[in-house]
């Protein structure tokens, strides 16, 4: 299968709010833009559209998020942005990007610039029983509800933290789910928090109204929302039957003697999100560490340029701050790419970006106001016991990791010794847990534990799509090779 090569001004990776907005801004400024997303529809996780086989006959009957998403997606119409769905970016070598569309052979495009907007995924949290059927992440449950319109059980217990702990149970209740309890690991808002929120309210009315509405929905559906409580374990014979939760201190560490058991057949876990770093790590971006934004956060300048020339990052993949921030960041990144490409003057770009920047400042003022409430406690990484499976792909338990971690603080070696992180997910789920265990054993902050060497493919690729039969292999090790260079190579 020969590899075709196409040349474009800008490749946008990710078709969520940040990616759509970046693609649109850059295309409107005259760039030739390709937008790739691995899902069958645009919208990302937040604006996930009903799956193939579903037809929306009455948009007015859908929820507000659906309509906002639809409007955002429709805003690409007429912009000239070429959209590739079911398409993963699997490798990047300088300006050459390898794309794999489901069912087709890999192809390469040469992209002069790239906006990475890969989004985020649920913060993986390992606790005894987290691999039992019936335990599901907030993102997973949201996908089921939004794309397939189904719920996985009768009695759902939600355990999590942050904005999602409020919004999510409320949305699920709206879909008809029976939420037995919602647990928030963080503290209940106090008068001081509400005053800070009020001071940051300017320009954030919609978000705050949403929060109030969600709180109201929980009350209306009589869903108890319990603060400073965390999931301790899930129990059951072959599937979730009971969930044990307990009170925590401000670092989210469990307070002994506070356990309670609840009957539930679904445990939905939503301790916030972490940025999807694979592509940014592969191209060599540098990172900062901010646990509240998802841990590793790509380093960017005021135009959202990463430390790699021609690579920009926007949205939750560059620090989890939600869809409104993503839309505005996407706009700034798209304008930046157009400006750097010479399609926009610096003055025009600055003027066009100004409203987005003003909104971003306000969102961040709101985030600062909620920092106390939504701080992620290190205790979230300390819920596993010796028996808990940490790496699901390779079935590595915590006790298997202990001797390896005692011998080294190098996560690559721990991986080699135990196989943790070698499976199909390539450590996306377990790597932070392993890093947390290394950090604890060696008495270091988690951000100082270097992650495993990033490698392509960023997503698994079938050999049928990957193999290129037109490539002539290098010659075998013959004398001519050797004679060409008989010195030591530095």
């Amino acid at each position, binding site marked *: 299968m020969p*590899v075709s090569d196409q040349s474009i001004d800008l490749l946008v990776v990710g078709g969520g709010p940040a990616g759509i907005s970046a693609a649109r801004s850059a295309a409107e400024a005259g760039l030739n833009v390709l937008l790739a997303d691995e899902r069958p529809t645009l919208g990302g996780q937040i604006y996930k559209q009903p799956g193939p086989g579903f037809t929306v006959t009455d948009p007015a009957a859908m929820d507000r998020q659906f309509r906002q998403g639809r409007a955002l997606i429709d805003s690409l119409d007429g912009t000239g942005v070429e959209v590739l769905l079911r398409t993963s970016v699997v*490798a990047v*070598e300088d300006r*050459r990007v*390898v794309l794999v569309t489901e069912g087709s052979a890999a192809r*390469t495009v040469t992209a002069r610039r790239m906006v990475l907007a890969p989004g985020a995924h649920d913060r993986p949290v390992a606790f005894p029983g987290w691999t039992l059927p019936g335990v599901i992440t907030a993102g997973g449950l949201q996908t089921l509800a939004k794309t397939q319109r189904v719920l996985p059980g009768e009695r759902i217990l939600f355990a999590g933290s942050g904005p999602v702990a409020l919004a999510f149970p409320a949305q699920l209740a709206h879909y008809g789910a029976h939420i037995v309890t919602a647990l928030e690991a963080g503290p209940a808002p106090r008068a001081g928090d509400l005053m800070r929120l009020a001071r940051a309210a300017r320009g954030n009315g919609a978000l705050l109204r949403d929060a109030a509405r969600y709180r109201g929905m929980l009350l209306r559906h009589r869903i108890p929302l319990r603060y400073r409580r965390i999931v301790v374990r899930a129990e059951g014979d072959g599937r979730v039957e009971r969930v044990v939760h307990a009170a925590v201190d401000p670092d989210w560490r469990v307070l002994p003697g506070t356990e309670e058991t609840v009957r539930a057949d679904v445990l939905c876990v939503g301790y916030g999100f972490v940025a999807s770093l694979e592509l940014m790590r592969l191209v060599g971006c540098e990172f900062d560490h901010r646990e509240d934004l998802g841990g590793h956060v790509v380093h960017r300048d005021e135009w959202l340029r990463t430390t790699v020339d021609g690579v920009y990052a926007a949205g939750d993949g560059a620090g989890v701050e939600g869809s409104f921030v993503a839309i505005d960041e996407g706009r700034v990144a798209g304008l930046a790419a157009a400006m750097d490409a010479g399609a926009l003057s610096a003055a025009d770009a600055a003027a066009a970006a100004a409203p987005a920047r003003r909104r971003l400042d306000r969102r961040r003022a709101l985030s600062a106001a909620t920092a106390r409430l939504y701080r992620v406690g290190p205790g979230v990484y300390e819920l596993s016991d010796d028996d808990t499976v940490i790496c699901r792909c*390779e*079935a*590595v*338990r915590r006790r*298997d990791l202990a*001797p*390896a971690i*005692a*011998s*080294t*603080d*190098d996560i*690559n*070696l721990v991986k*080699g*010794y*135990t*196989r*943790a992180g*070698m*499976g*199909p997910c*390539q450590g996306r789920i377990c790597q932070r847990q392993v890093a947390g265990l290394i950090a604890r054993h*060696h008495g270091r902050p988690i951000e100082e534990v270097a992650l495993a*060497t990033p*490698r*392509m*493919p960023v997503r*698994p*690729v*079938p*050999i*049928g799509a*990957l*193999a*290129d*039969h037109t*490539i*002539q*292999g*290098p010659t*075998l*090790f*013959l*004398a*001519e090779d*050797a*004679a060409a*260079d*008989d*010195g*030591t*190579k*530095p």
Partner: protein
Amino acid sequence: MTAGPLESRHWVPAGHSHAPLPSSTDVLVIGGGIAGTAMAYYLARSGVEVTLVERGELNREASGTNAGSFHLQLAIHQLSGQGAEADRERLLDEARLSLEAYSVWKELGDELDGSLDLHETGGWMVAETPEQVRTLRDKYELERLAGIETEVVTGAELRRRAPYLAETVIGATYCPIEGHANPLVVAPLYALRAVEHGALIRTGTEVRRIDVNGDSGARRFTVHTDAGRIDAHRVVDCAGAWCGEVAAMVGLRLPVRNEGLHVNVTEPRPRLLTPMVQHIGRRLTLKQTDQNTFIIGGGWPTPDAPRPRRYPTSWHSAAGSTAVAVSVLPALADIRVVRTWSGVIVFTNDFSPVVGESALVPGFHACVSSTGFTFSPYFARRLAEQMTSPVVSPFPERYSLDRATTGTLRRENR
């Protein structure tokens, strides 16, 4: 179904590896791959005072990144160009050596008291053209001379015995004693046993300079590292791909170059392939591991990168190597590659290893070979024997550390 984690294994504790460097040692081993840890083990077992320094972590380069295969079939397609007779002698010698190296491997699990996941799976070397089949037959004749058991299989018998091979494969040789071990555990286990015999192992310790002192006593070498200075009576260069840089510190030029090689690994699938597969005319090594994943390599190149960056992998090599693999084993088509990695391998330009003691710089030793995973246990054991007992026969002249050093050494290093 995966084989699960490597339970109940034990590793050299971090506290040991990070302790301060001693001020002196009898033997200083440079490099913590399979050659270095094996040297440390065999020397320590004989009661020699030995210290190993490794600039990064143990087993992180070629020793831990190779595919763990033992290929005993002759690499007849790898000709040195020095003429048929010279190549024939070299190949026969290599064949006998392979058998000896493999016999060390077969006892290694008992010797080190641990599982190395060694499996004798057998191996195919396949041919797709009549010319390649002729080469297979020539190879078979040489192997017979060297005492390596192989057979040439074609036609219906090949289809029957290897139904997974493509129709385009018209012939193959089969060698029943080829196999593989787990490269992730061998060097660490050598290291642990070396420490139990009194060896010191210091990771995160990079050699920056080596002073060669006039006397040949305990302070023959003063080795400067980023973690301090150490005097050594003898030095063994086990730095693999970087052995030339270490040897250059004492004025020697080794006939080596290094190359990054690309490897692919797939998701696991139900057992399909037990023997390993190589190709006589194209770059391919292929096997299904204990974990049921497929590892596809065969010497496809990767670009290099300045340290401390690791060599990247290459899309071109991924697409090319999997094309060879799927054309030989069509069932691979719907299996997904989940990761690629690269290993930096040392190559000697004359295909001979670099093992022994330098005559130009007495006391300076090396233990370096291209197929280091197969050969290092054997070479390390023999070199350690030589260093502890002068009666052991020396290595052949073509292994010499001095063979590429021309002119005179820099005066200060005499």
